[in-house]
């Protein structure tokens, strides 16, 4: 027990020492918030169904953080740990293998949550963020979305032979998803054909779910998203249990 706590704490420190990871999870979303907030403000508009631009960006940027953590952060760190033999060294201690992976997942989850929290706090203070949903629902949606993306990260890190190739493939999947899912650019401004194609991107469902819960929708209105993300999670765990490699 002491081992897993210490390992998680250490991994958290290491995360904050890694400038790239910390920047994209914690700082970059805030930069986006302030950049577009200063351009568009947060006046309620009919375009966003009576919400302001910032109100709708906060759940969308949260989806961006989830994708960054799951697809880039987790994939690259697991693949790197494997390639360097760090996983092997940890496995030679009395730690149980699942403990080692649990620590990795908890840390990246906490950092993702921290990124979201910073975003909400900043938007509340600076732009008087409007929130009409149930906080518990939003939190559960956040957990489901994070875990399903983390499982994607595990698949990638298991399937790809090197840290370098894992990074490249993760980027190739990440960037189109980032721009087409509505996580950065509001989906409303994209052409309809692209919006249709975007239905095939997992991140689109995260954006839909978080935005829906944000404005007070209930679970009944988002069964599709919940089904897609749960399916992804189950699929991801099943696949990565078979493909995960320690070295």
């Amino acid at each position, binding site marked *: 027990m*002491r*081992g897993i*706590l*210490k*390992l998680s704490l*250490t991994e958290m*420190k*290491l995360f904050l*020492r*890694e400038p790239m990871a910390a920047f994209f999870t914690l700082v970059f979303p805030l930069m986006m918030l302030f950049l577009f907030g200063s351009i568009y403000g947060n006046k309620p508009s009919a375009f966003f169904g009576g919400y302001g631009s910032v109100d709708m960006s906060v759940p969308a940027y949260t989806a961006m953080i989830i994708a960054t953590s799951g697809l880039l952060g987790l994939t690259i760190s697991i693949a790197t*740990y494997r390639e*360097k*033999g*760090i996983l*092997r*060294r940890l*496995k*030679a*201690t*009395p*730690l*149980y293998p699942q403990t080692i992976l649990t620590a990795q997942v908890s840390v990246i989850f906490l950092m993702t949550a921290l990124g979201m929290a910073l975003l909400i706090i900043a938007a509340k203070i600076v732009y008087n963020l409007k929130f009409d949903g149930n906080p518990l629902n939003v939190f559960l949606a956040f957990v489901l979305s994070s875990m399903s993306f983390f499982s994607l990260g595990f698949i990638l890190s298991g399937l790809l032979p090197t840290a370098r190739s894992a990074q490249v493939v993760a980027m190739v999947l990440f960037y189109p998803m980032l721009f087409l899912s509505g996580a950065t650019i509001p989906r409303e401004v994209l052409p309809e054909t692209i919006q249709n194609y975007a239905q095939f991107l997992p991140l689109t469902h995260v954006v839909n779910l978080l935005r829906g819960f944000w404005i007070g929708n209930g679970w009944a209105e988002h069964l599709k998203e919940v089904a897609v993300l749960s399916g992804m999670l189950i699929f991801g765990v099943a696949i990565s249990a078979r493909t995960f490699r320690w070295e």
Partner: protein
Amino acid sequence: MNKKVIEVKNLRKTYGSVVAVEEISFEVYEGEIFGMVGPNGAGKTTTVECVEGLRKPDKGELRILGLDPQKEGYSLRQRIGVQLQETALQDHLKVWEALDLFASFYSHPVDWQILLEKMNLAEKRNAAFNKLSGGQKQRLFIALALVNNPELVFFDELTTGLDPQARRNMWDMVRDIREQGKTVVLTTHFMEEAERLCDRVAIVDQGRIVALDTPANLIRNLGAENRVVFTINGEFKAEKLNELASVTRVEQSGDRCEIYGWDEKLIVDVVNALSKNGCAFRDLRTEQPTLEDVFLALTGKEMRD
């Protein structure tokens, strides 16, 4: 005879169609430094990793400290120390954090501050892993292997990639670890290391142990000749030395001579004969067969780095 700490019977391990360990059996006794030598790919590391419980053997009976490494891996890892080949720590992990972290994995850790001093890392306690030199990293890995005060310590290619000075320091550390009553198992492809450090050595080739004994016995059983080597100043036909009773063979190329023989008196006879013939020589030295020669004779291979 001391207590057995390792018993391996008929170990076999394959990776797909590649046979890493054909069949290996050996025992290691409490308090000894046991070495496995052999070229890369001989199966040393696979053997050691099966013993540590990190790999599942295809076949074989293994008892390590009385435990089954597969079924009782958790208890075993509490009691052994491991330094792995080709491993690393997180780039930004500081030396003290690594020790503090690894100490937290064990039920009875030692005070790692003492290890830090002992391994000469006290000055580097706040240095990140990726800022350490090869020797410092290796010392940190030794410290991590000792953090649970293990009864049995494994060193896999401990000194590969280190300069000669650092290598000698490592040897002293290994001897010191044994002085504390621990058993040490090490693999190396430096014959000199095995010869100087190990009480017993297993020579491994193509997944089998081809010889296992003390370095002195291995060399004696090889039955190789001693050699006297020198350089002549001026003219001299070394063939004349063949007349000496202790000489079995003479080789000369230019002014460089190598005289072979069994007898302990070989060097005395050769030097006397040279001075009697008024032959001036320089750079004279004797060469005994080494473990390297044993290895060559047994496997027909040069040791490759």
